[in-house]
């Protein structure tokens, strides 16, 4: 029941057999295109032969250039829906030139501008000349569609020529094109038949036996208006009293069309006249439909006969299945239909019924509305809701809803909820809840027999409506930044879903996950997104299921699970590869997944591999990136440049990232401006970083929230760097104060990734104050947690202060594996390069971490058994440790060991 692309709308009209050839006009059009002008505009009122002259031009142009392709769209009012218009545009161009590479255009939904850009790129990549004709452009009033055509004009590839036919001048920058010599125009004065053309038409083509005077009288009376001359010719066919007719016509003041249509109709047998009048309510004519509307049979033959008699029917396909009346003729017929039996409403209702039977719901709705049968229209619109939403033709649905009286919508909760959703996407958050509440009470209302008192028909949509309402409430809460409300409504939606309602479960779990994430409850967030992924997969939406990898991996990183994050990216990329092979185009998230994996490899300090994945992401092209995640590529590249010691390049890339940033559904946890401030701090540009912190209203006494954690950790770095530059103020105490509170919050939330970074900064704060001993304690915890996950850049990006601290750690034998691995990556010559900072009398055989822990306890007042209890080990094991320590320190008593350890700075 999706709204199909009607090929009849894309049919290039053939040159009509009874048409006058118009070489003077064709030549003008040909010259215009040959001169490279962008636009041809045929602007004249109804009945001036606009379509005919364009189809003659197309036939002529194709004869001259067999390579030329013609794309033709006959527009109507429904094409004011931009999604629909773009759909026809793509189909028309693809039908005209099957070789056009439009995979990138149709592969993924994007903004109108993205779609157009991809379309223009595809056209620019082709060398085949193409003319795009937009007929009946006067029906286009919607700004987004006009914008789309303007955009096309502004970025028109040289192979494309655009031709518009319109009854009124289009609301496009026509004056600018005219002034720039980019416009070829045909107007009413050009299109009017000259006396010679009128003579040629009436005598040669229509075969009428008319004198030169008769022709001149008819031409003058119709003022060269082609529709008038055609009707006059039809009236004159097989008429005996030619001069009598012409005299009567010339002597009448009646409107030409009125006079002539009446003449033509009068000359038709009654069944033909009735057929013409009754079927004039239809925009498209086919045999079965006309049978249904007229209540007769044999309409197919009637239509064929009308075409033969040249009675203003226009074929819409090659197989003569669909026709339409010439617009002007149809309008005059409709004007005369009033007062006839059956009346207009009955005819429209019959048409609506036929369309509904044939599953063409959009047309069924249109005729129901024309019949003023709002109940019928409302029922049909409800039926169309799921398919219209899938095809994203929302503007169509909204236009319909606007035509329904509010009480009708109120009695149909399905429509009420859709209306609420439309307010939500329009950004009118305030309007959503009243509409949801109204729909909810309509849903709950019961009549005296206990049955539902609303009008919505039983459907899947209706059954899952309580879930939908709760999901939209969660969305409203999100739009308001109300995380608690978001969680409550999302949980309620999840509780209400039935096991089989995968999309409902996915949406609810998504909001639940986002709320948990933004509040820093990453365990719950990861769980919820696991549910989203599973639901999307069960619903068959593998591409969207893949895109849940990005928020999931972000949260895993917050939990310090670098390896799990890496695995989830690798698995997702494998899946993306399989989908890509199966469907020909990579799923939209593929590029984002490559970026995510690159970022993890960079953290592991494998910069060549990180760069390779960024390159792979770029090579996939624009369509393999979600709009919302595009900025991440530039951020990742900035991190690599920073790691390579090129902070200026990093800053430039962060600037580009800022321009690509789009506020999406995901919480903004690592704001780009804060990342910029971190680069400044690394460069010693503390003034700029301080100005940033002030502008963001950051203070070391802020209450810690997860949404500001990244900014607060940036502030801590700024305070530490400030203390190094100017120790007098004691900024390191502010930093430690802030870090202490951040640590408590992060530990409560079990966000071990955050905890590691906080402890690393605590170490740097102590070190900045010259307190190396106190620095080593949080550093050791951080290193020990980070080591098995393979963290590297987290430490290395802190530069020389961290390198110095790691040298102390090496000397003290702290977390030796981690220190050794990090030292291997520090240039030049690793940790030992610091010279004066080299460990005091390094040990040939360094102490293990466990041994160092034991040594610290040996330096205390604790007894042997107390120490064993403290370490949860047996006394025997403690003795083994002690023996090893004594051996490495080359001592043989506890006091000697403590003395030696103090001398070496190990305790």
């Amino acid at each position, binding site marked *: 029941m999706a709204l199909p692309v009607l090929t009849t709308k894309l049919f290039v009209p053939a040159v009509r057999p009874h048409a006058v050839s118009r070489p003077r006009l064709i030549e003008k059009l040909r010259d215009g295109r040959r001169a490279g002008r962008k636009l041809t505009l045929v602007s004249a009122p109804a009945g001036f032969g606009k379509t005919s002259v364009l189809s003659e031009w197309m036939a002529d142009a194709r004869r001259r250039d067999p390579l030329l392709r013609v794309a033709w769209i006959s527009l109507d009012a429904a094409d004011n829906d931009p999604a629909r218009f773009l759909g026809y545009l793509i189909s028309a161009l693809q039908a005209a030139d099957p070789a056009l590479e439009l995979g990138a255009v149709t592969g993924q939904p994007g903004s109108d501008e993205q779609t157009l850009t991809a379309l223009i790129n595809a056209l620019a990549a082709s060398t085949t000349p193409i003319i795009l004709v937009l007929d009946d452009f006067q029906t286009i009033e919607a700004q987004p569609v006009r914008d789309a055509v303007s955009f096309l004009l502004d970025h028109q590839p040289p192979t494309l020529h655009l031709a518009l036919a319109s009854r009124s001048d289009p609301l496009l920058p026509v004056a600018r094109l005219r002034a720039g010599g980019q416009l070829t125009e045909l107007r009413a004065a050009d299109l009017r038949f000259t006396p010679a053309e009128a003579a040629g038409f009436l005598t040669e083509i229509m075969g009428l036996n008319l004198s030169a005077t008769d022709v001149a009288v008819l031409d003058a009376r119709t003022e060269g*208006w082609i529709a008038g001359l055609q009707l006059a010719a039809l009236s004159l066919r097989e008429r005996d009293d030619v001069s009598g007719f012409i005299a009567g016509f010339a002597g009448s003041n009646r*409107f*030409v069309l009125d006079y002539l249509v009446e003449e033509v109709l009068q000359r038709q047998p009654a069944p033909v006249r009735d057929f013409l009048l009754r079927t004039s309510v239809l925009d498209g004519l086919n045999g079965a439909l006309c049978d249904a509307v007229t209540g007769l049979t044999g309409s197919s033959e009637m239509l064929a006969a009308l075409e033969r008699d040249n009675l203003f029917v226009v074929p819409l396909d090659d197989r003569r299945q669909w026709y339409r009346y010439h617009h002007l003729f149809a309008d005059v017929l409709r004007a005369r239909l*009033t007062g006839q039996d059956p009346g207009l409403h009955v005819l429209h209702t019959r048409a609506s019924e036929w369309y509904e039977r044939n599953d063409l719901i959009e047309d069924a709705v249109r005729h129901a509305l024309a019949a003023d049968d709002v109940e019928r229209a409302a029922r049909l619109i409800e039926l169309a809701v799921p398919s219209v939403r899938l095809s994203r033709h929302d503007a169509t649905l909204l236009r319909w809803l606007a035509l329904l009286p509010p009480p009708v919508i109120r009695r149909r909760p399905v429509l009420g909820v859709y209306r609420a959703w439309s307010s939500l996407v329009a950004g009118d958050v305030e309007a959503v809840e009243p509409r949801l509440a109204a729909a909810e009470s309509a849903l709950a209302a019961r009549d005296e027999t206990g049955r539902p008192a609303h009008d919505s028909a039983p459907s899947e949509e209706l059954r899952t409506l309580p879930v939908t309402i709760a999901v939209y409430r969660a969305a409203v809460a999100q739009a308001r930044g109300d995380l608690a409300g978001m969680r409550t409504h999302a949980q309620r939606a999840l509780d209400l879903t039935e096991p089989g309602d995968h999309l409902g479960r996915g949406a609810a779990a998504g909001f639940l996950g986002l709320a948990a994430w933004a509040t820093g409850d990453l365990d719950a967030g990861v769980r919820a997104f696991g549910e989203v992924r599973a639901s999307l997969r069960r619903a068959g939406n593998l591409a969207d299921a893949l895109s849940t990898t990005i928020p999931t991996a972000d949260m895993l990183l917050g939990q310090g699970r670098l390896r799990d994050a890496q695995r989830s990216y690798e698995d997702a990329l494998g899946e993306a590869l399989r989908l890509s092979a199966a469907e020909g185009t990579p799923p939209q998230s593929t590029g984002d997944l490559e970026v995510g994996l690159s970022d993890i490899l960079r953290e592991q300090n494998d910069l060549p591999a990180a760069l390779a994945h960024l390159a792979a992401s770029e090579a996939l092209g624009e369509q393999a990136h979600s709009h919302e995640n595009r900025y991440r590529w530039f951020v990742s590249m900035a991190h690599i440049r920073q790691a390579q010691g090129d902070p200026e390049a990093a800053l430039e890339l962060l600037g580009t990232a800022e321009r690509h940033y789009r506020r999406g559904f995901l919480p903004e946890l690592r704001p780009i401006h804060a990342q910029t401030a971190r680069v400044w701090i690394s460069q010693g540009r503390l003034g700029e970083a301080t100005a940033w912190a002030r502008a963001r209203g950051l203070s070391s006494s802020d209450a810690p929230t997860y949404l500001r954690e990244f900014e607060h950790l940036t502030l801590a770095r700024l305070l530490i760097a400030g203390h190094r530059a100017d120790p007098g103020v004691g900024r390191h105490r502010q930093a430690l104060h802030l870090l202490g509170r951040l640590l408590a919050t992060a530990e409560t939330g079990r966000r071990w990734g955050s905890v590691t970074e906080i402890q690393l900064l605590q170490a740097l704060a102590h070190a900045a104050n010259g307190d190396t001993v106190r620095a080593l304690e949080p550093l050791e915890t951080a290193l020990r947690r980070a080591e098995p996950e393979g963290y590297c850049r987290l430490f290395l990006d802190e530069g020389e202060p961290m390198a110095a601290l790691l040298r102390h750690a090496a000397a003290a034998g702290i977390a030796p594996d981690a220190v050794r691995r990090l030292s291997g990556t520090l240039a030049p010559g690793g940790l030992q390069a610091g010279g004066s900072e080299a460990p005091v009398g390094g040990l040939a055989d360094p102490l293990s971490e466990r041994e160092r822990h034991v040594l610290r306890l040996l330096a205390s007042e604790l007894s042997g058994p107390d120490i064993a209890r403290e370490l949860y080990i047996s006394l025997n094991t403690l003795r083994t440790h002690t023996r090893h320590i004594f051996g490495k320190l080359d001592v043989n008593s506890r006091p000697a060991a403590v003395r030696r350890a103090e001398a070496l700075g190990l305790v």
Partner: protein
Amino acid sequence: MPPRLADPHRFEIRIQGQLDAGWSDWFDGFELTDGRDGTTILTGPVTDQAALHGILRRIGDVGLTLLSVNPTPSRP
């Protein structure tokens, strides 16, 4: 600020050619009178600008030539 129109306002629209009264429904119930000079005058209430533009478009749709559009004083 654009001039405000009394609501609803009556308009008098003059077109080329004579139209019989059968066209009244097509023009949303406007009254048709013979202008006696080969023109027809359509008179009727217009609720707002959109309605006025709608009528003008219907005139264009059937290829009628528009001569003039004038507001007329509201009837008592």
